[in-house]
């Protein structure tokens, strides 16, 4: 069996790709963001900026509780509001009400007699103006009976608990009588024997809060009925092709009658992956034969996406030398009212619940528990930040018992390159030299140097499996004047993917950087891309673009031979060059000569496909692992509980930095986002399942004033990734273990261990009070 990098290297060699970067090329340079100027100046058109003259505006009707039976909906007053075109409830939808979903086909287009979370729409108003739509939405009278919904893990798991899911969704399922949607179990080694030989055992319970993605652009959808009976759907989604397939499936339209335009999302973080309101807006457009538009408020966005909260009970054993012997963890993920992709978050996150460590005996039992809350979905880290919080804290708990420090305990247990950290049938091996990242983070934080009172340091590591299957297709057109157009379906939501395609094409085809444009966000013109998720695009789409460039070069060579009469065997290509018996020609010049007076262009095609494995619990081996080491130095105000991060170091194992500037910005963004759930972010619910801190006023994310005094981002490069030039995906690493590093730093500063996130001033203060009394 080969590892993912070995397979990737073999594939690279088969394609004839060079192992190293090109001297003097654009790849590897801090090229400025493609489209960054427009994004900075405000010129970029987000979905809310697109003009649709004559469009109808949509407003949603909800009930003020998290769980209720809808007894009746009186729309008479709403219909009487001037400008109202239609008011639609489930009764106006086809029967049974169409449902959709990623892992389960469970989400109705509109609430079907039962509201399962606060904010779930029960009706939609369509009007000539937004004011009319909103006024009419307030005039809709919903007669409902509140039900004893389950809003916490304890409530959902209690005997006789209200069942969130309609039993018809999974009639034969063994867990049908419970709120457990799915479970996952991973085990290896003789755990009883390993426990018996442990010298030190620590057992603790940890919690990770429900948090929301908080993209700065809330998003929205516009549906345009076409003359041919199809639909154009505008939505800032990460997966335009999934949305196309969903709309096609819900409405029975062929794929070529559904065209998805995906304007750049203003931040996605996983929250804009899967369809939510798009089927409803599409239905309204087909029903009214008019353009229908909704732009969400921030509050509505809060009610449509979040990360699963998690409670983890962990029991971990060590030898007196500090070597891990066993780790048991039970992890309950609090997912929401519909499955979305949450079962996979649970399964994939818990797969790495024992961390990147050498542990002879492991047992992991995880459950995805449904509650009457906002459906949880993919969110940067995809389950890893939750399990990492428990694992990293357990390691430090063991270290404290053993008199070791946080660095030393990790040195003794972190796997070496090529060594398995998940054992058994579906093993996973370290695909990088992760010790380098750990040591670099320790060095950059000044590990072991003296600290003033009330200051402490913590260090932690995190891993996350990359994509386990995937398909990206790309077209590259080299035009007769040497400029080029790349068609790549990756959604650019701020990560800067297009910049990389530009750099790759510039180097491979010898085009000038500013003469390479990228087309994306239109399923009608851009070839298929499975997803923009799991930090996959550099590896998958990057490889497809690279292959398309090779295809162009091959075609240039062939036509040059035909046009000039120089035998093809005497020609060769290099990045940006055609090698002829008379010397080197730049590829654009060779292309111009080959095309001749008819001009025209070369069209290259590239595909990167990773087939999954049916028997693997993740559906396949991860194409790569993201690995990160984070170290934090914190000062604690013991009287108020406030934390001041004086230094925050993050080191990621990136394979190759295709664009160092973008690596740093992704890393910094992830680190700061990690501080959000570590320090301040949490969705708080009231007794009726409503979000108490619904909106920007009381849901706190870090601002620039909350950023550590020093934030240092470094990368380890060993050119050992499966992507172009040895790259790996890098967009999530720096938030995987932020919480563990911060928690350890606070414990170091105060002597008090906190196991519940976020570490708000009040929570720290309360813990210190408890310790003092």
């Amino acid at each position, binding site marked *: 069996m080969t590892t993912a990098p070995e397979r990737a290297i073999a594939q690279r060699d088969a394609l004839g790709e060079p192992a190293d970067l090109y001297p003097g090329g654009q790849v590897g340079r801090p090229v400025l963001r493609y489209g960054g100027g427009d994004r900075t100046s405000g010129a970029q058109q987000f979905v809310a900026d697109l003009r649709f003259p004559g469009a109808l505006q949509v407003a949603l009707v909800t009930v003020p509780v998290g769980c209720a039976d809808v007894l009746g909906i009186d729309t008479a007053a709403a219909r009487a509001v001037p400008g109202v075109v239609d008011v639609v409830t489930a009764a106006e939808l086809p029967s049974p009400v169409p449902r959709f979903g990623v892992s389960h086909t469970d989400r109705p287009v509109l609430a079907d007699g039962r509201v399962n979370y606060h904010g779930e729409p029960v009706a939609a108003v369509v009007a000539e103006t937004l004011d009319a739509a909103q006024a009419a939405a307030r005039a809709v009278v919903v007669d409902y009976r509140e039900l004893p919904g389950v809003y916490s893990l304890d409530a959902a798991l209690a005997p006789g608990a209200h069942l969130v899911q309609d039993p018809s969704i999974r009639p034969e399922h063994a867990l049908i009588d419970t709120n457990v949607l799915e479970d996952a179990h991973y085990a290896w080694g003789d755990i009883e024997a390993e426990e018996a030989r442990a010298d030190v055992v620590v057992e603790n319970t940890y919690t990770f809060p429900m948090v929301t993605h908080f993209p700065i652009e809330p998003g929205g959808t516009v549906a345009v009925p076409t003359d041919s009976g199809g639909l154009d759907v505008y939505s800032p989604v990460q997966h335009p092709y999934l949305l196309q397939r969903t709309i096609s499936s819900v409405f029975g339209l062929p794929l070529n009658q559904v065209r998805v335009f995906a304007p750049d999302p203003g931040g996605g973080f996983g929250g804009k992956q899967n369809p939510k309101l798009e089927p409803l807006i599409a239905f309204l457009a087909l029903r009214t034969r008019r353009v229908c538009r909704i732009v969400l408020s921030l509050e509505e966005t809060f009610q449509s996406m979040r990360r699963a909260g998690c409670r983890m009970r962990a029991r971990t054993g060590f030898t007196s030398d500090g070597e891990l012997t066993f780790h048991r963890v039970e992890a309950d993920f609090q997912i929401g009212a519909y499955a979305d992709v949450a079962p996979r978050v649970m399964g994939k996150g818990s797969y790495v619940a024992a961390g990147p460590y050498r542990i002879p005996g492991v047992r992991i039992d995880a459950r995805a528990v449904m509650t009457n809350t906002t459906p949880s979905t993919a969110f940067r880290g995809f389950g890893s930040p939750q399990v990492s919080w428990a694992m990293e804290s357990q390691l430090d708990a063991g270290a404290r018992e053993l008199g070791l420090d946080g660095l030393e305990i990790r040195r003794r247990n972190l796997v070496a390159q090529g060594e398995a950290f998940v054992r058994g049938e579906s093993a996973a091996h370290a695909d990088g030299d992760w010790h380098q990242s750990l040591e670099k983070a320790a060095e950059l934080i000044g590990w072991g140097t003296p600290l003033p009172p009330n200051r402490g340091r913590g260090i932690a590591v995190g891993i996350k499996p990359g994509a386990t299957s995937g398909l990206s297709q790309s077209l590259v057109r080299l035009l007769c004047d040497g400029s080029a157009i790349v068609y790549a379906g990756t959604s650019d939501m701020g990560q800067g993917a297009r910049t990389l395609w530009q750099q790759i094409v510039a180097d491979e085809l010898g085009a000038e950087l500013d003469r390479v444009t990228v087309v994306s966000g239109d399923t009608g013109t851009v070839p298929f891309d499975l997803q923009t998720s799991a930090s996959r695009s550099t590896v998958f789409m990057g490889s497809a673009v690279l292959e398309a460039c090779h295809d162009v070069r091959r075609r240039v060579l062939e036509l040059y031979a035909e046009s000039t009469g120089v035998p093809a065997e005497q020609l060769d290509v290099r990045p940006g060059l055609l090698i002829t018996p008379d010397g080197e020609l730049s590829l654009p010049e060779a292309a111009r000569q080959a095309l001749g007076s008819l001009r025209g262009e070369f069209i290259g095609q590239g595909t990167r496909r990773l087939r999954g494995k049916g028997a693997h619990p993740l559906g396949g081996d991860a194409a790569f692992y993201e690995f990160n080491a984070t170290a934090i130095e914190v000062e604690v105000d013991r009287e*108020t509980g406030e934390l001041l991060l004086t230094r925050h170091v993050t080191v990621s194992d990136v394979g190759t930095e295709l664009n160092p500037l973008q690596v740093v910005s992704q890393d910094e963004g992830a680190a700061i986002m990690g501080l959000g759930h570590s320090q*301040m972010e949490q969705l708080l619910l009231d007794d009726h399942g409503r979000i108490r801190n619904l909106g920007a006023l*009381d849901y*706190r994310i*870090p*601002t620039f004033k*909350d950023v550590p005094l020093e934030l240092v981002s470094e990368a380890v490069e060993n050119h050992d990734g499966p992507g172009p030039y040895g790259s790996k995906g890098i967009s999530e690493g720096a938030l995987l273990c932020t919480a563990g590093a911060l928690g350890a730093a606070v414990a170091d500063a105060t002597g008090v261990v906190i196991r519940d996130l976020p570490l708000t001033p009040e929570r720290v203060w*309360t813990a210190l009070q408890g310790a003092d009394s």
Partner: protein
Amino acid sequence: MPKYYRPTTRADALAALAEGGAGARPLVGGTDLLVGLRHHTLEPDLLVDLKAVTDLPEPIAVDDEGMRFGATCTLGELVEHPVVREWYPALVEAALTVGSVAIRNRASLVANSCNASPAADTAPPLLVHGARVTIASLDGDRTAALDDFFLGPRRTLCGPGELVTRIELPRPAPGSGAAFRRLTRRRGVDLATVSVAAGVGPDGALVLGMGAVGPRPLRAEVPGPVDLDDEASLAPALDRLLAAATPISDVRGSREYRLATLRVLTTRAVRTAASRRNPREMAS
């Protein structure tokens, strides 16, 4: 949607407010009002924009007795003013915690007081400095101490048809000092979990303005001198000052946390205020 009216004279503004009664709202920066409109927590019939009125008190006026701030004085103007910075550093500290730069360049000091949030950041230092407000209507002007002006959450002496045209602050006594402290859930833009302004008088008397620990901003004082370096003297003084605080538990903090940190912040604010007393002036 409410009607929008932009008068150019004070008389027209007052007439419009009188005619609109409880359904009319004056508008300056809109930093609270527009949020309320968006969320439909406020649904006035008429907005009377004061920014084009030419005969309202000027935004900032200063003389030997003190300073006066007109209804259109923004927090951005306030914090840049050299005399404000010299005389009322606690007010500058508080104003700088309101929103962001962009918000402060719109938000009005007077309107911030009229909004009467129990957590209003500028209220504690204004209370410490003995602010008075002038309330105008078609019937004429009246003045009130800011401490009497605040009635409860979002309730003030300023009724329908009335307008607060200015806030005045007496010049701080020589040898006095003041400071502001605030606790929030994060360092950037946030609402106060607890806020406090402390003033130390020339004779060592202490005065406090407190935010987010009661249904309205609170004021308390104890006569001096209080020996700040002597715990036996400071502790009972703090007990008396803080007795008025009746915080609730809410999404921003628990009652227990607020009470404990109010005392911590007060102690810190009092010490900073004392350190700001001008020694030369004290001697004179």
